[in-house]
C-alpha cells in the first residue's frame, strides 16, 4: 500500500508531533491555547506514558495523534507520513465511555472487525476470545449500562485491540478500576504488548503506573499553553510485574526524579484552580 514510503517507514517513528500548538475557540468569543511547542516522538515499538496535571492537555495531544483534532500549528507524522484526516493506523481508548450503548459487549467488540471485512461469524468468535482475555467472557451478552465502569473500560480495550492497530492511544484506561484490577489489567497489557511491541501513547494521572508500564515518561506542564517539561527514560528490565517492580530501588530513583518535576506543575495547576474559584 505504501510502497514508496517503505524504506522511510522502516526507520520512521510511529508518531512524531512537531511544533504542535492547539488553540480552541471559546463559545463566547476568544480563544484558549491548550498546548504549544509540543515535540514528541514515539518509536514504532515504544511505550510512552504521558503524565501531567489535570486539564493540561493530555487528551488533546492524543486527539491530535488520532487525527480527531487538527493542530493550529505544526503537525503530526505517522510512520513518516503527514497526517491529514483520521489516523487509520491507531486504535483509541477514550477517557469517556465510548461504547455503543445499544450493543452488547460482544457486539461492541465484534463490530470493530466489520470495517476490515471480517465475516460476522468469525468476528463473533474472535470477539469472544478477546472478551475472555480481558476477563469478561461471562459478560458477553450484557449491555454497557449493565457493566461497571471498569468492565466497560475492559470491553473498550478488547474493542481496540481486536483490530490489531499499530499504534495504541490510551487515555486513562485504568482510571475507574480498583487497585487490584488495575494491576491485573496492567500486567495483561504488558503481556499483550510484549508479544508484538506496538507503539503506545498512554495517558495516566498515576505516576507509579506510568513508570511501571512505560519505556519513557513524558511530563507536561500546567496549562494554559502547556509544554513538555520532562522526558525521562525508564530503563527498568522487562518483562516486568507491575506490583513487584515498585519495590525495585531503581524504580524509586526514577520516581523521585520525575516527581520533582511533576509536583511543581501539579501545584501550579492547583493554585490556578484556586484562583479561578476565588
Amino acid at each position, binding site marked *: 500500500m505504501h510502497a514508496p514510503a517503505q524504506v522511510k517507514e522502516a526507520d520512521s517513528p510511529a508518531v512524531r508531533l512537531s511544533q504542535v500548538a492547539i488553540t480552541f475557540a471559546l463559545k463566547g468569543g476568544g480563544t484558549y491555547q491548550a498546548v504549544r511547542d509540543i515535540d514528541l516522538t514515539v518509536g514504532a515499538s515504544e511505550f510512552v506514558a504521558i503524565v501531567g496535571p489535570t486539564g493540561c492537555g493530555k487528551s488533546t495531544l492524543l486527539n491530535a495523534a488520532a487525527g*480527531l483534532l487538527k493542530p493550529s500549528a505544526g503537525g503530526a507524522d505517522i510512520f513518516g507520513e503527514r497526517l491529514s484526516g483520521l489516523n*487509520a493506523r*491507531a486504535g*483509541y481508548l477514550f477517557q469517556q465511555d465510548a461504547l455503543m*450503548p*445499544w450493543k452488547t459487549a460482544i457486539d461492541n467488540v465484534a*463490530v470493530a472487525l466489520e470495517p476490515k471485512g471480517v465475516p460476522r461469524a468469525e468476528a463473533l468468535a474472535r470477539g469472544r476470545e478477546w472478551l475472555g482475555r480481558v476477563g469478561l467472557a461471562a459478560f458477553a451478552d450484557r*449491555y454497557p*449500562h449493565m457493566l461497571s465502569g471498569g468492565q466497560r473500560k475492559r470491553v473498550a480495550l478488547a474493542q481496540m485491540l481486536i483490530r490489531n492497530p499499530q499504534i495504541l492511544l490510551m487515555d486513562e484506561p485504568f482510571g475507574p478500576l480498583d487497585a487490584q484490577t488495575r494491576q491485573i489489567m496492567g500486567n495483561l497489557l504488558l503481556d499483550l504488548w510484549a508479544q508484538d511491541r506496538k507503539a503506545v501513547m498512554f495517558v495516566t494521572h498515576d505516576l507509579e503506573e506510568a513508570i511501571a508500564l512505560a519505556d519513557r515518561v513524558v511530563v507536561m506542564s500546567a496549562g494554559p499553553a502547556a509544554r513538555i517539561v520532562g522526558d525521562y527514560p525508564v530503563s527498568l528490565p522487562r518483562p516486568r510485574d507491575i506490583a513487584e517492580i515498585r519495590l525495585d530501588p531503581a524504580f524509586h530513583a526514577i520516581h523521585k526524579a520525575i516527581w520533582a518535576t511533576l509536583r511543581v506543575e501539579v501545584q501550579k495547576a492547583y493554585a490556578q484552580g484556586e484562583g479561578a474559584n476565588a
Partner: protein
Amino acid sequence: MRRTTLLAMQVGVGLAFLLVWHLLTAVPVSGGKPLFDPFFFSTPLDVLARTWKDLVSGELWYHLGITLTETVLAFTFGAIGGIAFGFLFARREILASVFDPYIKAANALPRVVLAPIFALWFGLGIWSKVALGFTLVFFIVFFNVYQGVREVSPVVLANARMLGMNERQLLRHVYWPAALTWMFSSLHTSVGFALVGAVVGEYLGSSAGLGYKIHEAESVFDVTGVFSGMLVLAVFVIVIDTFVTAIEKRLTVWQPGTGAATAQG
C-alpha cells in the same frame, strides 16, 4: 406496589366511577326521577347493553377494523416519512436551515382544517383519514429522529470512526440506533395521534369507522350510542397502548431502567 394490588385499585376506580354514574342517572330520588336525566347522560347499564348488542351483531367489528386499518396505515407512512426526512435533514444541515420556517409553520397548522381538503382530494374512504393521521405522525417522528441523529454522543461517534467505520457503517451502527431510540420515546404519542387522525377524519365525513359511529349517534341525539362509541374507543386505545408498550420493551432492552424491571419480573 405489587402488580395485583395496583390492578385491583385501577379496576376499583373504574367501578366507583360507574357506580356514581349509575346512582345519579338510574336511581330515582324525590319525585320519582333520577338526579340526572338519562336522556342527556344515559346510564351505564344502557351503554353496556348497547355495546354488547353491537358486539354480537358484528357491526362493531366492521367499524373497528376500518379504524384500525386507518391507524396502522397512518402510523406506518408517517413513521417512514418522518424517519427518511429526519435523517436527511439531520445529515444535510443546509436543507434543515432552508426549510426550517416552513416546517415550523406546517407543524403549527391545526390539522382539522385539512380534513375537508383531504376528503376532497382522497374521497370519503379510508385514504383521507390516513392522510390526516399521516400529517400528525410525520412531524412527531420527524422532529424526534432529527434530534436523535444530531445529538449522537460525540465520543461514541469518534470511537466508531476510529474503528474505521465508513459512512454507511456509521449510519447502521450509530446514527440509526440513536434515531430509533428517540422515535421509540415518542412511540406512544405518535400511535395515539395516528388514531386521533383516523377518528377525527371519520367524524368529519365518512361512512364507516368508530368516529363515524359516534357522529351518527350524535346527529340523532342518541347519547347511549355516543357513550358506547367512546367506551369502545377507550378500550381500543388501551389495547393498542399495551401492544406498543410490549414492542417498546423489546426494542429498548439496552437502555438503563428496563433492565431493572426485567430483573424484578
